[in-house]
């Protein structure tokens, strides 16, 4: 299956050791739920068994007196409700964290297609079905699909995110254990869905830097993006010296943009992608809608490179937010 090496095994039949910064919290919540739900399940089953034995036909029981049931019913309505709200808040709190990548997260561009994962590091180094990352360093994935919906799933990290065509979705993690961890596609995507496996390789930071620098000499993602910026003609309009009136793109990511129809948005990766492919969608106020579309001329990797270039021109703080 894609030549995946033997994955380090840990835990017995059920448990899979966690390897990311969110795994311990996940395991704690899961453990608490198992305790709680297990107790309830056991309680119900024991009650049924006990009543079945004690009150079986012919066992002789007293008159069942008039049952004052209201108090009990309210109690076992209100108690689960209260517990559920606590569980909801706990799980929601942990979930929200997944939407807040740290500002210093290493960006990695991911393109999923039937039936493989294509990944590209900031310096241009590409991988197929493998992702090398440094230990203890936040990594932020910017993902899109070329065809159907896929899903990036690393069980050891307790993380999963659908990868959708036509937009970017994001996932961030900090690996906390060295080793290799399985990557699965978790959204059914056709014939070879079960073959769309990969692995995350977590290395010590120094080794990662060495690995990153080795491999074929190639331009960084941002350099490649800059080259595209010129060769596609973007700089012809968007450079300051241009005679065409076009918005400046320096530090665009995270900047507040006022649109022609009165709306105000914060420019993120999805906005940049839409502007390249469907430029008339969100025209900036005060500019004529003359930008041509580049749909069909740029691949998903090209767009990710252009975004990397734009990111390198400086981003305001909000620009590091995860696209959803």
């Amino acid at each position: 299956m894609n030549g995946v090496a033997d994955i380090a095994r840990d835990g017995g039949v059920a448990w899979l050791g966690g390897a990311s910064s969110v795994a311990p919290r996940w395991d704690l919540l899961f453990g608490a739920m198992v305790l709680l739900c297990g107790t309830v399940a056991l309680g119900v089953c024991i009650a049924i068994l006990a009543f079945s034995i004690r009150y079986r036909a012919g066992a002789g029981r007293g008159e069942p007196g008039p049952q004052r049931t209201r108090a009990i019913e309210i109690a076992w309505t209100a108690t689960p409700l209260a517990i559920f709200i606590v569980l909801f808040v706990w799980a929601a709190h942990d979930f929200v964290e997944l939407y807040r990548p740290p500002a210093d997260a290493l960006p990695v561009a991911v393109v999923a297609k039937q039936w493989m994962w294509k990944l590209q590091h900031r310096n241009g180094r590409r991988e197929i079905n493998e992702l090398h990352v440094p230990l203890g360093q936040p990594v932020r994935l910017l993902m899109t699909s070329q065809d159907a919906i896929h899903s990036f799933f690393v069980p050891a990290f307790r993380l999963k995110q659908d990868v959708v065509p036509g937009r970017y979705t994001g996932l961030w993690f900090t690996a906390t254990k060295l080793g290799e961890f399985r990557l699965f596609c978790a959204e059914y995507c056709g014939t070879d869905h079960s073959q769309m496996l990969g692995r995350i390789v977590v290395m010590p930071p120094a080794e990662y830097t060495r690995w990153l620098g080795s491999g074929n000499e190639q331009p960084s993602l941002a350099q490649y993006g800059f080259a595209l910026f010129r060769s596609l003609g973007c700089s012809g309009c968007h450079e300051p010296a241009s005679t065409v009136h076009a918005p400046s793109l320096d530090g665009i990511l995270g900047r507040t943009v006022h649109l022609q129809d009165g709306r105000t948005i914060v420019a993120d990766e999805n906005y940049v992608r839409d502007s390249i492919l469907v430029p008339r969608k969100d025209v900036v106020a005060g500019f004529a809608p003359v930008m041509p579309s580049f749909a069909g001329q740029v691949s998903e990797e090209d767009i990710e490179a252009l975004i990397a270039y734009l990111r390198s021109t400086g981003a305001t703080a909000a620009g590091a937010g995860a696209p959803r």
Partner: protein
Amino acid sequence: MSAIAAPALAAADDAPRTAQLGMWIFLGTEVLFFGGLFVAYAVGRAHWPHGFAVASRHTDVVLGTVNTAVLLTSSAIVAFAVACADHPAQRRWTALALWATAALGVVFLAIKGVEYAHEWSEHLFPLADFALTEPGAELFWVLYFVMTILHSVHLLIGIVGVAAFARATGAGKSWPTPGRVDTMALYWHFVDIVWIVLYPLLYLVERHA
């Protein structure tokens, strides 16, 4: 244990109430059916406000308005038919009104056909040669055709039903009872109401933005 005897099946004069309740529930399902399309429309307009505005300017607002008037009139006439149906002596008027309703429905479909013909020649069908390049415009026209075609199918069913009632009433048959005519009219009114929602969505919103 007190005992209350159950009677036979609900008396015959309860049948209209039963049929009416059934029709209301069926219309409820239709609301949810079209509702999915309204949701798609709302999402599309939210994503592509400019594209939808541009696209909707190409709908034929004159014919659309005429059609709205046609349907509203037909609803008034079928309501008149329901009133006549209560008076067996006015059977001829009932039949006439029902025929007029069906006829107006046919007029609607004919006008719609003319609109489709225009839209075909203007390359507004969402096929490979779709004329508008504005992003989101094609989505508008996809929804336009799906919604109006579905509406027309429902209208056609209504026309056939009303015509059947008209014929039977004219021939003096007994099965078109006042209750049943009322139930049929209910369906007709519903088809009209769907159009009343579609008309502004497809013809009026942002026409002159």
